[in-house]
């Protein structure tokens, strides 16, 4: 039992160390080949693009530019403290961005889980959004 606890503790330390070691994300320069992700409703802390995982440290105006040459995955870590009970989850989503489009990331919570959602901005509708084909994110960008 003691060894199991030690293994879990070491794994957690290794995971946290790995997270801290992700290189910071460098957005591509604005241009016709990039897409924009609106993070006003989703606190993304890491991004997977081109097969590499990066940490997101600061996003100007909640707008993140991403390359459109490969699928993009965004991850967050949600922690809710309620006095004597704490809840956490790690929602994420991956999709193929299209050049020139703007996407909205959204976080939904329910009793048992949290969900990351992505929508494409669509100014023609009153909701202002359209559906995007998305999948769960690859674990650790693999």
């Amino acid at each position, binding site marked *: 039992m003691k060894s199991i606890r030690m293994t879990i503790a070491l794994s957690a330390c290794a995971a946290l160390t790995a997270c801290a070691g992700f290189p910071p994300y460098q957005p591509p320069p604005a241009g016709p080949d990039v897409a924009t992700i609106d993070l006003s*409703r989703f606190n993304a802390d890491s991004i997977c693009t081109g097969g590499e995982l990066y940490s997101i440290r600061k996003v100007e105006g909640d707008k993140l530019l991403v390359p459109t040459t490969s699928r993009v995955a965004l991850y967050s870590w949600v922690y*809710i403290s*309620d006095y004597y*009970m704490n*809840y956490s989850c790690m929602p994420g989503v991956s999709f193929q961005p299209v050049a020139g489009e703007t996407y*909205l990331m*959204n976080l*939904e*919570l*329910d*009793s048992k889980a949290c969900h990351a*959602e992505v*929508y494409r901005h669509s100014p023609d*509708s*009153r*909701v*202002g*959004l*359209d*559906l995007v084909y998305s999948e769960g994110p690859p674990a650790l960008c693999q």
Partner: protein
Amino acid sequence: MRLAAILCCALALAGCATGYVKDSIFGGHWDEEGPGELITVGYNGNGYTKGEKVEIYLLYRSAEVARERGKPYFSAYQSIRAAIVDAPLSEATVHALGGKPFGKVYIMLHDGPVPGGLEATDVLAKYAEAVKRFGTVPADGQGSAG
């Protein structure tokens, strides 16, 4: 003496139950703009709030928002996805964390009736008595201004 202490405890606990009030550390309703023309309406209960109250408060607050903005009709959606495909709901779904119920709906306001839509005055009339019975609402039954 013991009875007085029990009564005090009961009163204190009753005071913890969040009524129909604007959101605070004890819970309550809130609303925010977006996305698009949607308005997000939510209610956070506390450990003394029953889920059925949250469902009623969500629809009641949604109707209040519609009335405050001069729109007689509204559609309520469980998610942004449901709003995009225009699949409105008739009853709000309530979740709970640590025994504290919470819920959220996205509403779209309308000038006229739409399929699956709700009439604000109907919702306010239907739930005014329940909201008044459960918690704080002005005696005229017009609800809080949020």
